[in-house]
């Protein structure tokens, strides 16, 4: 607001000099000089009165304890409010936020809304899926042991209270180790019929400590993802708020309306559990795009605050939604969960079993029959995709997750813990003549130098070619175009590269995680590895405090 006044004053001063100068140059007419000065005098007086009134209003507001900046108190509208890109309409409990920035990557191979049969026998929990866990956790099972779903497999020696439990019942057949003997996978050969460990469920009013103890014992605590840093929360780290995005705008992402169908009661139960775990709110992000279907389970969810978001990807990312609902500040801890994690949590409290079953979207242009499959957390990728990858001379890349922030997997590896999607796309390891100028095939691009923006509905066959070589940062403003947050990603990246710890925090690194900057990385003309850089920065900030 103060800046606005300065600008106003400058304008007044400038115009007054202009009038005086023009009057001087026109020596003949002293009448003009007089009226000019008079006019300026009146203007200055008016500006002074308005400015005084404005300041008095703010002083008064401060006295009664109102936040001057947030409530936009004052006579003059603040410039940033006038040119802000988002509009928020608050109506009752629901808020609506329109995000103008972002970019939808439309790809061929969307999963059809049907459940295909599958026969996965091997499942694994991989310690490497959890940030910050020590590389060699204490494994409490041995090869040959039989476990039930919900039995403990291992725990982190630094936090022995939090159990990592088995998603299925069966026999432990492998404990695989990677570099420096780090444990990478605990593999279970699943039984034909699943047996669940029966838990004694505490009442929701039992208090947070008792609930936490139960969740940590049953393995459900690991469903929670704590921001910043994306870690499993510490044993007594209850969140400021809990955020759930009920729609995913990433390329080929599963449709949560389809996922939640038939499990509405569990979902609602899960929300009630979450509400008991925080002193803040449980915030639900809903799809507010025109014409978007929103399942009743989301629309009519109780005990939560609902926020509608309209816009292109990454509008469905929970990080973006947190930024607009209640941004993460230094020292804040919030939790995020996926819709299916809430269902698992709900079922645990409704029936006393840890049921890690999941619907996985099998998608991508290299999949024969893109559809959903019913399986469990940590299913083996090769078995999930058996017979479903196109067999021609082209190479395929299997990704656990979406094409922007997923992890590359071999068929012998396992679905990442939090993923509910597998994407298989073509490898692009081919030279292309003048590919940078005249590509043979249409390719996704946010750039207007391609005619893509004229065909918004077109679905692309993407491959993994980098379409160019890595360069220094040249273009500016490109990342901001696809990140609907009040953050300067390029300068944040430079701060990370320069190891400038304070600037990183100041520029909002705590609000970001890899999936939020993934789209920036996609559009980057210089092909910079932003997600990797961001994680390096997060690691630095985490280790500092």
């Amino acid at each position: 607001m103060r800046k606005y006044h300065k600008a106003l004053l400058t304008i007044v001063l400038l115009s007054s000099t202009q009038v005086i100068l023009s009057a001087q140059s026109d020596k003949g007419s002293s009448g003009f000089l007089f009226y000019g000065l008079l006019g300026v005098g009146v203007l200055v007086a008016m500006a002074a009165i308005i400015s005084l009134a404005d300041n008095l209003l703010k002083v008064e507001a401060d006295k009664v304890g109102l936040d001057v900046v947030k409530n936009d108190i004052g006579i003059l509208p603040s410039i940033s409010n006038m040119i802000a890109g988002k509009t928020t309409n608050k109506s009752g409990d629901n808020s609506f936020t329109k995000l103008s920035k972002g970019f939808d990557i439309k790809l061929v191979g969307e999963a059809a809304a049907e459940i295909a049969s599958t026969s996965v026998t091997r499942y694994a929990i991989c310690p490497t899926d959890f940030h910050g866990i020590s590389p060699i956790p204490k494994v409490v099972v041995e090869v040959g042991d039989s476990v039930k779903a919900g039995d403990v497999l291992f725990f982190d020696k630094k936090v022995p209270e939090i159990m990592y439990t088995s998603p299925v019942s069966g026999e432990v057949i492998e404990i695989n180790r990677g570099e420096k003997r780090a444990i990478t996978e605990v593999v279970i050969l699943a039984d034909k019929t699943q047996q669940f460990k029966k838990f004694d469920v505490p009442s929701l009013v039992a208090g947070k400590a008792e609930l936490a103890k139960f969740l940590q014992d049953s393995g459900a605590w690991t469903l929670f993802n704590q921001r910043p840093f994306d870690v499993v929360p510490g044993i007594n780290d209850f969140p400021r708020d809990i955020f759930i995005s009920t729609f995913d705008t990433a390329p080929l992402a599963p449709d949560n309306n389809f996922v939640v169908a038939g499990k509405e009661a569990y979902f609602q139960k899960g929300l009630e559990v979450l509400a008991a775990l925080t002193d803040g709110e449980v915030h639900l992000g809903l799809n507010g795009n025109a014409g978007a279907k929103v399942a009743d389970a989301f629309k009519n969810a109780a005990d939560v605050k609902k926020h509608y978001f309209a816009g292109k990807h990454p509008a469905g990312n929970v990080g973006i939604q947190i930024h607009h609902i209640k941004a993460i500040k230094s020292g804040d801890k919030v939790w995020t969960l996926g819709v299916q994690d809430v269902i698992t949590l709900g079922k645990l409290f409704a029936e006393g079993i840890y049921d890690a079953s999941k619907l996985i979207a099998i998608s991508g242009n290299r999949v024969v029959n893109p559809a959903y499959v019913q399986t469990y957390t940590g299913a083996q990728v090769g078995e999930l995709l058996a017979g479903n990858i196109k067999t021609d001379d082209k190479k395929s890349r299997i990704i656990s997750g979406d094409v922007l922030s997923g992890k590359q997997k071999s068929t012998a590896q396992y679905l990442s813990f939090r993923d509910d999607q597998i994407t298989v796309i073509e490898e692009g390891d081919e030279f292309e003549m003048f590919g940078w100028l005249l590509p043979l095939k249409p390719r996704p691009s946010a750039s207007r130098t391609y005619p893509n923006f004229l065909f918004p509905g077109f679905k692309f066959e993407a491959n993994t070619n980098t379409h160019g070589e890595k360069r220094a940062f040249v273009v500016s403003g490109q990342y901001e175009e696809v990140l609907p947050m009040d953050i300067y990603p390029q300068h944040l990246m430079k701060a990370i590269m320069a190891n400038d710890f304070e600037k990183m925090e100041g520029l909002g690194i705590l609000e970001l995680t890899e999936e939020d900057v993934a789209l920036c990385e996609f559009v980057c003309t210089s092909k910079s590895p932003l997600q990797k850089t961001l994680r390096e920065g997060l690691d630095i900030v985490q280790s500092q405090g």
Partner: protein
Amino acid sequence: MGLLQFIKSIEPDKKKSPFLHTAYDAFFTFAFTPDTVTKGGVHIRDGMDLKRLMFHVVMALQLCYIFGTYNIGHQHFIAQGEYLGFMDGFHLKLAHGLIKMLPIFIVSNVVGLGIEFISAARKGHAVEEGYLVTGALIPLIMPPDIPLWILAVSIAFAVIIGKEAFGGTGMNIWNIALLSRVFIFFAYPTTISGDQVWVSGFDSLAPGTVADYGWWHTGFFNSIFSSMGLPLFDSAASVVDGYSGATPLTLAYQGGWEQVTSHFSESQMLWGAIPGSIGETSKVLIIIGALFLIVTKVASYRIMFGMILGAIGGTLILNAWGATPFMEVTWYQHFLMGSFLFAMAFMATDPVTASGTNKGKWIYGALIGFIGIIVRVINPAYPEGWMLAILFVNTFSPLIDHFVLEANIKKRLKSA
């Protein structure tokens, strides 16, 4: 792909001949997009890369190139008092334009790219694409008669001191093309300022000076034209009486807008059939190029509009002052003269040297517009300001960004 295999088979060894390998790599990646795939991070990448970006800027300059080349010839014959119509003597004007333009273009690219290749080989980097645009911009901002050795020295200075010393493309502080021009401006001022330099083909523009034709005119082109029965270059042709060669800006400095319009009509200035730097004269074609850059989002519209607003603001203040006839020239008249639009569309929008934040871009553009107009009108030595204004604000663009970022940081801390 027989061709691909052949080309790959002649790849020079990187250790034995680093320069050859760098050069090979530059041309190879120009012809073939590499087969590299994503690793870690995103799995698919946008089809946009730096080559494509730079190429689109070069595309936007093409109309200026065609017109500028022809206009060199046109101005040459205007000075002789012959072929006064724009399309009269088309072949002669085009031939003269090419004789002047091609050496400048070739020298600019051979010197600049040569330095790029050598330094890339020394650093073991791939050749970066920045010079594609710089090499296309430099000929357009030179007077047509610029001595080639001066051009070569200035480019060497700009590329070595202005860019490679800072670490190459993306690291430089000042606009390379303008740096080469400002080098000439300070080191060899007589070749790039005054009334005499904007019309080519004469040693001086004093009436009666005989045209300075070489073998290309009288030998090469005349023999072609004579075989086709077309009019020839006349080696006895001389500057017509009463011709001055003054540019609109010089005229405006002498006597305001009236003096300008007594020599040039507004439509002449708009379409660009006036003396000046090679590529800057045609306002219409520059605007088309600017629109192309804005539509493709290759250049920032924020900088362009910021600069227009700044220039209008500066002009209004000067109008109010009105101490000299030049100060009374209105803002749209300023846009018709000199290189304002060219600087706005192609020079100020260089993303490396401009501010990086969106808010900063408005401030950056407005400052250039404001300062540029002041320099143009008030500087007695040289009635044009954009080159100096842009380099000046280039220096401050990190500072502008700093304030924008500090505001963002403060806002975040405040609400914590």
